[in-house]
C-alpha cells in the first residue's frame, strides 16, 4: 500500500517528465496516450487504496532534520485526501481525455507541451492534497500556482494571455506568502509541521496565535480560490485553453482553499474570528460574483464568475463548520462546472474560438448533444431538482439556516439571494446562447459540426454524474448522506438538523431559482421586459457590474502604479537623489562639450559618501544599543 500511495504521485510525474523531456518531437499518438493515461493510472491507484480502506500516514524518508525541525516526506492517506484525489484524478482524467480532441489543432511540440503541463499540474495538485505536513503542502501549493501560470500563458504569443498569466501568478504568490507565514506561525508556536502531530498540539480555546495562523492560511486560501479581494485573476485566466479552464479554474485548483480550511479544521474550529471570516468572505464573494456574471458576454467569463460564486458557497459552508457539506458542493461543482466548461468548449471549438455569447444562438438545432449536456449543467448550477447542484447547494444553505445564530441566518440570506441571481444568469446563458435563433454575427454560418467522440464521451459521463450524483447525499428529502459518512473519520460528525423550517427555506430557494431561470427567457428571448430598457434606466449599475466593481482599476491605482513609481525612484537614487542637480549639469555638459557625456552617475566619490553615511547610521544604532 505504501508503494501504491507513492504511485499516485509517480504516474503523473513520469508522464510530465516523459512528455517534457523525451517527447517534444515524438509521436502525437503516444502523447495522446500518455497524457491522459497516467492520470487514469493514478485514478486506479486511488480506487485500489479506497477499496482497501487505507487510512494511514506513510513516511518514506526524513527529508530534513535539524534539531527540533524535522520534515519527513510523508503522504497522508485518509478519507479527506482520498476524496480529493478522486475528484482530481477522476474529473481530471475526463478533462485531459477531452483535451486530446480539443487541442488537436496544435502543432506536435505544443501538443506535447500542453499535456506535459497538464500532468505537472495534476502532480502538484496531488502533492497539495496528499502532503502530510505543511512544508509539502507549500510545495504543492506553489507548484499548482506555477503550473497554472504556465497553462494560462499557454498561448504565449498572445499578449493578453501572458499578462493574464502574470496577474494570476502575482495574486497566487501573495497567497503563497500568507500561506508560508501561516505555516511559520504554526511551526514557531507548536514546533510541528506534520499534521498528525500538529493538530493534537493545537489549543481548543481561541487565542491570538491560532487566530493569526488561521487568518494567514486563509490569505493563501482566498488567493488560490479567487475569493474577495484576491479574485481578479480568475476571469482573466480564461485566456488559457478551455480544458485548462475546466480542470484548473473550475474543478481542482480553485477549490484548494476549501480543502485547506477543511484540512485545517482543528485550527479553524479553535478560532472564532478567522472562522467567521471564512464564512463571510465566502458569502460576500458568492453574491458579488453572481452579480457580475449577470452582465458578462463572454461565455467563459460567465462561467468563471459563476465558479467564484460557487466557491463562495463552499467557503460559506466550511466557514460555518459544515465541512462535509462544503466538500460535497466541491464534488458536485467539479461535476457540473467541468461539464459546463467542456460543453461550452465544444461550442467554442465548433465556432472557431469565438467566445462571445452574442454571436451564438441556434445551437439547440445544430449541436443537440452538447446542448443537452449543457442544459443538465445549467440546471444543476441553478440548483434545480434533481440535479446534483440542487442537493449540494441545499445542503450548504440548510446547514447555514439550521445553525440558528445571527451569522447562520446572515450567510443563509446572502446565499439565498445568490441562488436566485444564479438562476437568472444561468438562464440567460442558456436561453441566449443555445435556445435563441442563430445570430447573424455567428462566425460559422452553415451547419455546425458536433464535437468528435473523444470530446463527447467525457462530457456525457459528466452529464450522467451531474444528473444522478445528487443521490449520494439526499438530506433534503430526508434520505441518506454518503458523503458525510465517508468523511466522518476526518471531519467529525455533522450536526443533526433539528430545525424544520429549513425545508421551507429549501423549497423557497428552489422555486425562486427556477422562476428566475424561467424569467430569463422572458427577458432575453421574448423581450417582454427589454434588457435595453433596464439598461437605460440603470446604466450606472450596468457599468459598475461591467467594470467588475472597478477592482482592477483600484489595484492599479493602489499598488501597481505606486510600486512602479517607487522602483523608478530608487532607480534614480544613484543618479540624482544623491547627486542633486548632477543630471542637469551632466546634460548641460553634454550639450556644451559633446565628448564629456559619460558623467551622470557611477561617481566613486558618492559611493564612498554613501558608505560613510552608512557607517554613521550603524554607529548610531550600535551606540543606541549599547546605551539602552
Amino acid at each position, binding site marked *: 500500500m505504501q508503494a501504491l500511495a507513492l504511485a499516485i504521485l509517480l504516474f503523473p510525474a513520469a508522464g510530465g517528465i516523459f512528455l517534457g523531456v523525451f517527447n517534444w518531437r515524438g509521436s502525437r499518438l503516444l502523447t495522446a496516450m500518455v497524457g491522459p493515461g497516467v492520470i487514469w493510472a493514478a485514478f486506479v491507484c486511488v480506487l485500489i487504496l479506497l477499496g482497501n480502506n487505507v487510512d494511514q500516514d506513510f513516511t518514506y524518508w526524513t527529508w530534513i532534520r535539524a534539531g527540533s525541525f524535522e520534515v519527513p516526506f510523508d503522504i497522508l492517506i485518509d478519507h479527506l485526501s482520498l476524496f480529493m484525489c478522486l475528484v482530481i484524478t477522476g474529473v481530471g482524467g475526463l478533462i485531459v481525455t477531452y483535451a486530446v480532441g480539443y487541442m488537436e489543432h496544435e502543432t506536435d511540440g505544443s501538443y506535447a507541451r500542453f499535456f506535459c503541463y497538464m500532468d505537472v499540474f495534476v502532480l502538484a495538485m496531488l502533492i497539495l492534497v496528499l502532503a502530510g505536513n505543511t512544508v509539502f503542502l507549500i510545495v504543492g501549493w506553489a507548484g499548482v500556482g506555477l503550473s497554472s501560470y504556465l497553462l494560462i500563458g499557454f498561448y504565449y504569443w498572445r499578449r493578453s494571455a501572458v499578462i493574464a498569466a*502574470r496577474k494570476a501568478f502575482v495574486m497566487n504568490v501573495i497567497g503563497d506568502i500568507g500561506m*508560508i507565514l501561516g505555516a*511559520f506561525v504554526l511551526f*514557531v508556536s507548536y514546533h510541528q509541521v506534520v499534521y498528525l502531530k500538529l493538530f493534537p498540539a493545537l489549543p481548543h480555546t481561541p487565542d491570538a496565535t491560532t487566530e493569526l495562523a488561521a487568518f494567514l492560511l486563509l490569505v493563501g486560501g482566498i488567493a488560490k480560490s479567487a475569493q474577495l479581494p484576491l479574485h481578479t485573476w480568475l476571469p482573466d485566466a480564461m485566456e488559457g485553453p478551455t480544458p485548462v479552464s475546466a480542470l484548473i479554474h473550475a474543478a481542482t485548483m480553485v477549490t484548494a482553499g476549501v480543502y485547506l480550511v477543511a484540512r485545517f479544521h482543528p485550527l479553524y474550529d479553535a478560532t472564532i474570528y478567522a472562522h467567521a471570516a471564512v464564512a463571510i468572505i465566502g458569502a460576500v464573494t458568492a453574491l458579488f460574483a453572481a452579480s457580475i456574471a449577470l452582465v458578462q458576454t463572454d461565455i467563459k467569463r460567465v462561467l468563471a464568475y459563476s465558479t467564484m460564486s460557487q466557491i463562495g458557497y463552499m467557503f460559506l459552508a466550511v466557514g460555518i463548520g459544515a465541512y462535509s457539506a462544503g466538500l460535497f458542493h466541491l464534488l458536485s461543482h467539479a461535476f457540473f462546472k467541468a461539464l459546463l466548461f467542456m460543453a461550452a468548449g465544444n461550442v467554442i471549438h465548433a465556432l472557431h474560438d469565438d467566445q462571445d455569447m452574442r454571436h451564438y444562438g441556434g445551437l439547440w438545432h445544430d449541436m443537440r448533444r452538447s446542448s443537452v449536456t449543457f442544459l443538465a449543467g445549467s440546471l444543476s448550477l441553478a440548483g434545480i431538482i434533481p440535479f446534483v447542484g440542487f442537493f449540494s447547494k441545499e445542503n450548504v444553505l440548510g446547514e447555514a439556516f439550521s445553525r440558528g445564530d445571527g451569522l447562520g441566518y446572515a450567510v443563509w440570506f446572502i446565499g439565498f439571494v445568490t441562488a436566485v441571481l444564479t438562476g437568472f444568469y444561468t438562464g440567460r446563458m442558456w436561453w441566449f446562447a443555445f435556445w435563441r435563433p442563430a445570430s447573424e454575427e455567428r462566425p460559422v454560418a452553415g451547419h455546425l459540426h458536433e464535437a468528435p467522440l473523444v470530446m463527447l464521451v467525457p462530457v456525457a459521463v459528466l452529464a450522467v454524474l451531474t444528473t444522478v450524483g445528487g443521490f449520494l447525499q439526499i438530506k433534503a428529502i430526508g434520505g441518506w448522506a454518503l458523503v458525510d459518512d465517508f468523511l466522518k473519520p476526518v471531519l467529525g460528525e455533522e450536526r443533526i438538523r433539528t430545525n424544520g423550517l429549513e425545508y421551507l427555506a429549501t423549497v423557497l430557494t428552489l422555486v425562486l431559482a427556477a422562476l428566475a431561470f424561467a424569467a430569463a427567457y422572458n427577458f432575453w428571448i421574448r423581450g417582454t421586459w427589454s434588457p435595453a430598457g433596464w439598461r437605460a434606466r440603470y446604466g450606472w449599475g450596468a457599468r459598475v457590474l461591467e467594470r467588475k466593481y472597478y477592482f482592477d482599476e483600484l489595484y492599479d491605482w493602489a499598488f501597481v502604479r505606486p510600486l512602479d513609481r517607487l522602483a523608478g525612484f530608487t532607480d534614480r537614487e544613484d543618479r540624482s537623489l544623491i547627486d542633486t542637480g548632477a543630471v542637469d549639469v551632466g546634460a548641460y555638459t553634454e550639450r556644451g562639450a559633446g565628448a564629456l557625456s559619460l558623467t551622470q552617475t557611477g561617481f566613486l566619490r558618492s559611493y564612498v559618501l554613501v558608505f560613510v553615511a*552608512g557607517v554613521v547610521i*550603524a554607529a548610531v544604532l550600535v551606540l543606541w544599543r549599547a546605551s539602552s
Partner: protein
Amino acid sequence: MIAAAQVTYTAAQAWSDLAQIGPIVAVTVALLVAVVVDLLLPRGLRGPVVTVIAIVGLVSALAIAAYRLVNGYGGPAYFRFVSGDAFALFFEMLFALIGVLAVIVSSSYVRRRGLYEAELQVLTLAAIVGMMSLAAAGSLVTVFLGLELLSIALYVSCGYNRIELPSQESAAKYLIIGGFASAFVLYGMALIYGATGTTVLSDIATRVTSDSAGNPLLLLGVLLMGVGFAFKVSAAPFHMWTPDVYQGAPLPVTAFMSVATKAAAFAMILRVFNYGLGHLGPEWQVLLAFTAAASMVVGNLMAIVQASLKRMLAYSGVAHAGYILVGVLAGGRAGVAAVLFYLFGYVFMNFGAFAVVSTLSGPAGDGDLYEDLNGLAYRNPTLGVLMSVFMLSLAGFPPMVGFFGKVFLFTAGISAGWTWLVVLAVLTSVVSVYYYFRVLFHVWSPLPEAPVRFAFGPVRGPVTVVLLAGVFAVALGPLSGFLLQVGLNGAAPLLSGR
C-alpha cells in the same frame, strides 16, 4: 636569555600542521607550478596547460578536504592561527568546487574574447587560497591577510581586460572602495586587539565576556569591522560598488566573484562575530540587522529596474546577502547550518546563472541584456531549461534548493526571535519573483525576428559547467537533509566553545 630557545617546533608538529591546511597547500602548489609553467612554456601552450594544472590542484584540494571531513580529522594548527576544522573543510570544498567551475568557464570565455588565459587562472587560484585561509582563519591576522589576498587577486582579475575601459573602471572602483573598506576592517581589528591583547579568535572568545560589552574599544571595533564585512558581502548601504564592478568585470570573474567572495565573507563573519565575539551578540546584531533589512529592500527594488542581467544579478546578490544575514543573526546551530546550506545552494544557482550569460558573449562583447536571452530555450534547450531552474531557485520557488535554503534561514530567524526581519524577508522575496520571472519571459519568448546579437561560439565547456551547476542546484533540493547535516557538522566547531 632569549625566548627563542624555548620554542620547540618538531618535524612531527610541522607535518601535522601542514596536513591541517592540506587543501590550501594543494592549491598553493598548483599556483606556484602554474606561475613557473607560465614563464617556461611557449605562448600557445600556456593557457591549456595552466588550466589543467589549476583543475588538478583544485580537484586534489577537494579530495583532501573531503577525505579529512569524512574521517573527522581537523583541528587548530600553526599556534591556533589557522584551523582545519569541519567548518574550514566545508568551505574549502565549496571553494574548490567553485574554482573548478570558474576555471572551465573562464578558459572558454577568454578564448572567445581573445584574451590571455594563463594569468587569469593564476589569479583565480590565488583568490581561492585567500578564501580558504579566510574560512580556516584562527586569528584576526589570518582573516585580514586572507581577505586582502582574495581582494587583491580579484582587483586584478576585474581589470583583466586591459584594453576595455569598463573593465578598468570596474577594477579601479573596486580597488579604491575595497581598500577603503579594508582600512575600516583593519582599524576595527586593531581596536579589538587593543581591548583583548590578542588576535587569536579562541582567546578573544574567552577574554570577551558579556559584561565587557560596555567597553568602547570593543564597541568601536565591532562597528568598524562590521561595516567592512558588510561591504564584502555587498550588503546595503555598503553595496554601491557591486553593480558597477559586476558589470564591468569580465563575465567569468563576475560569476566567480559574486558567489565565492560572498561565501568567503560570510565564513569570515561567522568566524569573527559568531565565534570570536559571540558574547557581544547584541552589539553586532543590531548592526547586521540594519544592513540585512536595508539590503533586502534596496537590492530587490533596484533589481526590478535593471536592463542588464549582470546588474540585475548584482542587486539580487545584495538582496541575498540580506537573507543570509538573517541566518547569521539567528546564530546557534540552526542558524549557522542554515547559512552554510544556503551558501552552498546559492553558489551553484548564481554561478550557473552567470555561466549561462557568459555563453552569450562573443568577440564583440558580453551579451548581458535581457533581450539577448530571447528565445534561448529554443536556441539551446539545455541552457534554457537550466536558466529557468536557476531563476526559480533564486526566487526561492519550491522544490528548488533556494526554497529549502530560505525555509531553513527563516525558521532559524524566527526561532531566534527575528520575526520582523523574517517577515520583511518573505515580503521582499516575493518582490524578487517579479524580476526573476522577467528573465523566464525572455528565455521562453519566441525566437526574435532580428538576427541575434550574439551567436553561440564554442561553448561546450560552459555548458558542462552550467549542467553541473544545474544538477547541483536541483539535486540539492531532495538532498537537502544530507547537506544540512554536513552544514551542522561544519557549524559545530564554531559553537563548541559555548
